[in-house]
């Protein structure tokens, strides 16, 4: 089963600004009419053509942005800054530096496990969705993995925005009922005597897995160690990469 992004790939010819913005409005209104919160939309929804799913989504987003900018509700430069932040400044390299520091500095690791937000802020990483961080330590007999079954909760300041698979139905549905099967799909074999702890991010706590430091890394620098720490190992669906590659996607 594949949930394609047909809308994103739509090749329909562009239509006028009025037409495409209206199409989405009708689609949204039709959708919103199901909701008790948005019942007020129902009366207007029937006045317009119905369209269950928006097409030409790029044009529609552009039109909405233009309208909101013209109305003074949003600042286009602020949008540029937000996109730039998540494309270039925040991402799993942040988390990797936290993990590498914890591997080389036992006192830092202790602080990280006791008060993760403060320890992460020591390295300069603070922002939304990371105020209530909890770090989960993997060990020989304990494997932690993180999911958000209800939506897409993820520790932005240390990992950036989540990958599509993390937000999609196959992972969200299966991580809690078949974690060992999911791990196997990621290439991680967990022995029977290892305790698997799944963390479903149902509130505002955000979880970062501290993977085990691979063997044979005793002489590596903190910087070199950070290169072994993959995004997936900090979600808990992979192990840290072994020196010379392997061990992780």
């Amino acid at each position, binding site marked *: 089963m594949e949930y394609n992004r047909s809308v994103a790939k739509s090749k329909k010819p562009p239509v006028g600004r009025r037409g495409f913005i209206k199409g989405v409005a009708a689609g949204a209104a039709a959708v919103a009419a199901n909701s008790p919160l*948005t019942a007020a939309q129902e009366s207007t929804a029937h006045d317009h053509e119905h369209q269950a*799913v928006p097409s030409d989504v790029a044009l529609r987003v552009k039109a909405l942005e233009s309208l909101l900018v013209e*109305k003074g509700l949003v600042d286009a430069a602020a*949008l540029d800054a937000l996109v730039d932040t998540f494309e270039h400044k925040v991402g799993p390299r942040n988390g990797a530096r936290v993990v590498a520091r914890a591997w080389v500095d036992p006192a830092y690791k202790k602080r990280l496990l006791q008060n993760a937000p403060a320890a992460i802020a020591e390295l300069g990483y603070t*922002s939304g969705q990371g105020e209530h961080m909890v770090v989960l330590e993997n060990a020989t007999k304990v494997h932690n993995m993180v999911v958000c079954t209800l939506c897409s909760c993820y520790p932005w300041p240390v990992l950036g925005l989540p*990958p599509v698979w993390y937000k999609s139905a196959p992972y969200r549905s299966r991580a*809690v009922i078949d974690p060992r099967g999911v791990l196997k*799909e990621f290439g991680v074999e967990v022995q029977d005597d290892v305790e698997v702890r799944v963390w479903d991010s149902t*509130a505002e706590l955000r979880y970062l897995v501290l993977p085990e430091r691979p063997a044979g890394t005793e002489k590596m620098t903190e910087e070199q160690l950070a290169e072994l720490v993959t995004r997936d190992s900090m979600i808990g669906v992979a192990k840290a990469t072994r020196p010379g590659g392997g061990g992780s996607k």
Partner: protein
Amino acid sequence: MNGVHDLGGIQNMGPIQYEKNEPVFHAPWEGRIYALNRAVRALRKWSLDTDRYGLEVLPPADYLRMSYYERWVVRMFAQVVQFGLVSQHEIETGKPDAGSAKATPALTASMSSRFLNRGIPPGNDPNVRPLFKVGQRVRARNINPTHHTRLPRYARGKTGTILRDHGVYIFPDTNAHFLGEKRQHVYSVRFAARELWGESASPRDFVHLDMWDDYLERV
């Protein structure tokens, strides 16, 4: 709401679609709708909880068919009209209504880094007392509300143990619907996989959920 977004434990959803070297955004519009959401929410007309509910009300078939950010687009068009930022007429014309007052953006480029540093208020409020304590056995309430909730179906009626008290948080079930913050304690609750899924589950698997006082009852 017992919606399709509540995916935990559903089977037959197919293999995990892993993409190597995945970009942060797959197309420029994904980045724009992400940023628009952040910038519009800075106007504080609605909360993150209301945002989450805005995705849960999508019809199930649409929810599963749409990509993640397509859902955000549909939600955004619905919300800006529903909460009065934009009129239906403006959506149709693509232009501000004649005579409409010009607003001031809540978020500017120079503020955006500061804005990113502002999040959910600290989880400490000595005036709100916890109803449960660490180590206590608790049962997740068997509730089936039609409104927003963060208590997944797979945990309802199940018994677990309070692992940690995380302090005081806004209650999403009311806050999403503008019915008050109803601050209360949130706990990590540890459930044995066998309690959730039966004897076929591994005896060494555990699932932890973060749960508000109102989701729990004494055993």
